[in-house]
């Protein structure tokens, strides 16, 4: 009984995490400019990582694998947002201004990654 419940919870977490990755991917492709894109992409770094790893930890139960998964999750949660921050900071320093335009504008070519 408890195993079934764990299974259901972990699969729900994995599915929601997968959906977050998908949303992040779509956002990275569809959003109008650089800053909104990394905003979408950072969803994969944080929310999706958290959900998918908790889901996998529930799958693996109490074992060494869980500990390793936890360590990897911690690592990803530390590095992902840092990388996003560094990316945004580098873009700002190199002169890409965050402006509230909506895409089909003169800044079109600036937004290419």
């Amino acid at each position, binding site marked *: 009984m408890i195993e079934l419940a764990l299974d259901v919870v972990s699969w729900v977490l994995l599915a929601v995490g997968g959906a977050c990755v998908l949303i992040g991917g779509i956002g990275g492709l569809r959003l109008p400019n650089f800053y909104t894109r990394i905003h979408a992409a950072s969803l994969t770094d944080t929310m999706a990582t958290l959900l998918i790893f908790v889901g996998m930890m529930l799958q693996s139960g109490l074992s060494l694998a869980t500990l390793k998964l936890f360590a990897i999750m911690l690592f990803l949660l*530390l*590095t992902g947002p840092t990388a996003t921050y560094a990316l945004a*900071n580098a873009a700002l320093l190199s002169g890409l201004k965050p402006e509230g335009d909506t895409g089909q504008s003169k800044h079109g070519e600036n937004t290419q990654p």
Partner: protein
Amino acid sequence: MIYVFALFLLTLLVITAVAIVRTENLFVAVMLTSIFSLLMAANFFILDAADVALTEAAVGAGVTTVIFLSALALTGDWEKPRPGGRTVALGTVGVLAMLLIYASFDKPRLGDPEAPVHQHVAPWYLEKTPEYMDIPNVVTAILSSFRGYDTLGEVFVVFAACIGVLFILGVKPARQTAAAPQPVSGLRHHLIPQVVGRLLVPFIVLFGLYVQFHGEYGPGGGFQAGAIIATGVILYALLEGEAEALRAVPRSVLLALVVGGALLYGAVGVVCMLKGGAFLDYSVLAADPVFGQQLGILVIEAGVGMAVCGALLSIFHAFAARESMT
């Protein structure tokens, strides 16, 4: 199911390769090369090559990218487009691709246990490793004992390449009189990466040491560990500036690592000969031949790790120092 994932990864691999060749921005090309290596590592892992995946991820995605970027900083980011038709080149490689694909139908199916490659010495290695060395990781056993000569050669190639880079880039540039190297600030104005990076560097080095000494039991060994430790120190150099990294791990230490690692490997072989065995026959190192093998493998893996780590870091510093020279 895993094969569907492999299919997806392989398709991405082809797309990335085409994108690398198409783009004229070399910076983008280098970044894509890093992604290419990561995809390749995932593929290796699916194909059961955990050791190779670890190496490719550490070397291909980590060290190669940094070396490429430091070379780009010296040569410029943009490639000039080549005018004229590309029919000849496309035709040549197209015909070659067709020939290779045609030839692939003669190859054994993926995973066929009857394939010729699985009939030769590999089963013997798998069978004899528990008897001769009694270590779980057969890859490490073959790498450092059964094919120890081969690995010795590879270590000396790495050594020679490192010395070559130092010679080529060590020459003072002709045009300028040696300008005083301005202190490199690193990422002083990037507080968050610096704080997080400082936190991570010790763990990366610790993980490298784990990979080094756990190489007999799990995926890992000297090559991977050397690359991982080198990436840790390179991260430190990127965060704190090159001068600071050189203060932590000076050039003399790096050279000592390269030379010492290669020498250590060779010395083990000589000691084996002095003790009455053949060159690199570790069985004679201890009274118990199995323990002798384990001891030999541990020592030469340490030699490999030292040589690789020292060589990669020396190469990185050679490129980085060139930047401040010119």
